[in-house]
């Protein structure tokens, strides 16, 4: 099992995973803060909103870094760092391992059918390979969140074609607090603001000073 380690280590060292986690957090807060159940929003609205918000947030966190490029697949939003492309998949909270790729969109089906050296499967031609980039491994970022209590789930993994009812992933790992310190911090150390000290202070004196003088 080399791929999961290689992919994970490379994306971790680049801060790519930290950026995804940050984007997911921002998107979740934005969606739950912005939509109200009282106003008639449902679980489905949250789902769609969370997907769009996450895509925008990911664009935003990668705005500064030229090493991550937007690399959609058949209209499905994707981001690529080196040989790894990441697509999004919202899953039912707590059930990331129960995803059925054979019931998902044709794009996700194709992604699940990518050849995997450590477990070769029968690949069926779906006529979309031409759009894919040779040498690119497409991974899936599975995301979910619940509102009350506020909890988030984020996983990165390599989907496995599971029309056989078997496992949904060749490998999958949580992108959570266990990923450790953000390596990007070293690159963009925040400088403390410079303060201007030339403007005169407001005049002030001890209480009662004039009365006793």
């Amino acid at each position, binding site marked *: 099992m080399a791929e999961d380690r290689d992919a994970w280590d490379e994306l971790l060292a680049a801060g790519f995973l930290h950026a995804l986690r940050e984007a997911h957090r921002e998107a979740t807060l934005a969606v739950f803060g912005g939509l109200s159940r009282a106003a008639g929003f449902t679980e489905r609205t949250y789902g769609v909103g969370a997907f769009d918000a996450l895509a925008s947030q990911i664009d935003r966190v990668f*705005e500064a870094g030229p090493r991550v490029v937007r690399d959609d697949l058949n209209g499905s939003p994707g981001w690529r760092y080196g040989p790894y492309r990441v697509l999004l998949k919202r899953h039912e909270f707590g059930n990331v391992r129960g995803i059925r790729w054979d019931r998902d969109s044709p794009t996700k089906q194709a992604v699940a059918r990518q050849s995997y050296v450590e477990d070769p499967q029968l690949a069926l031609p779906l006529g979309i390979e031409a759009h894919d980039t040779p040498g690119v491994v497409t991974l899936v970022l599975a995301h979910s969140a619940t509102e009350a209590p506020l909890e988030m789930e984020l996983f990165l993994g390599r989907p496995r074609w599971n029309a056989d009812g078997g496992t949904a992933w060749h490998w999958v790992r949580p992108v959570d607090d266990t990923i450790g310190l953000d390596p990007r911090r070293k690159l963009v150390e925040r400088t403390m*603001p410079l*303060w201007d000290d030339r*403007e005169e202070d*407001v005049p*002030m004196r*001890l*209480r009662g000073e004039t009365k006793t003088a």
Partner: protein
Amino acid sequence: MLFDCERLTLARRLRGLRKNQLAQAVGTTPKAIGRYEAGVQRPEEPTVRRLAIALGVPVEFFQSGRSPVSMDGAHFRSLRSTTQIERDQALAYGRIATDVVAVLERLVDLPEVDLPEYPVSPEEIAGPGPAEAARLTRKALVERAGPVPHVVRLLESHGVIVLVLPRAAERVDAFSVGVHPRPMVFFNPAKGDYWRNRFDAAHELGHLVMHADAEPGEKIVEDQAHRFAAEFLMPEADIAGELPARPDWERLGRLKASWGVSMAALLYRARTLGIMTEPVYRDAMSALSSRGWRRQEPGPARPLEQPTMLTRALEVVEGAGTDRDRIAGEARVTRADLDLLVPRR
């Protein structure tokens, strides 16, 4: 010692902890922490000591005493992107700041609170209220036309307490509280942007002038404060003739330097005043984005406007023989928290 349950909540919020985190740190259950905070149960002496250690406050912090100042009316900008924990933490800093101010006010004469009031209905979506409020406020606060030289000092000289949020609360945007007896504005220097902080300060001034009774955080209310800030910093009468109808970057750069507002704010102003058409404005904003200028605009950086009123007040009392430790003690805050809120220069 009389144990004040609200002081425990205050300390926990100050440190940005959830009940379960505090419970873990002192070896008890979140439920027990909840009972202590609700005043249903008084913690035993050893527990009080453990709580104090875990929260980095002296045991005396939990003494009952001063009546709590309500921070319920705080105007937070981005309710959407901050968590309750982060907002509670920022408000907890506000609370201890009021204690420090109360001690200082017994010793020094701070400038009198002198802000106009111009209530604008939180229902008013695109009316003239905010701009009128800004014109009136300028008339009362700024003697001359044109750019406002120093927004922070202007607020301070009219009795407003301006504080800088500690790093811990860096995700929270600027906010203001119209507390009795002094209004407070907290601003966040995390982005280190002179122009942005000035706009934030003017925005918060807008809340203090217009929104004593409005429900904080409403989108309409936030929009009103933005429009107030725009008119306050860039009065239509003074700037309309200078704004370009096309994105003339050189000219915008010059205007930015002289008015102390960002290019983005100038473009926005040009559009709201009808000088720039909607499509031209949209193109200009996307040019701004594609050049990476949304993140950092071109042109030299400028040091931030610094609040100095409380620093000065502490210097005055120190000069009369009352040192910082004593002030911290009387305000019942830790010396470290005092130094964080009111840094020495």
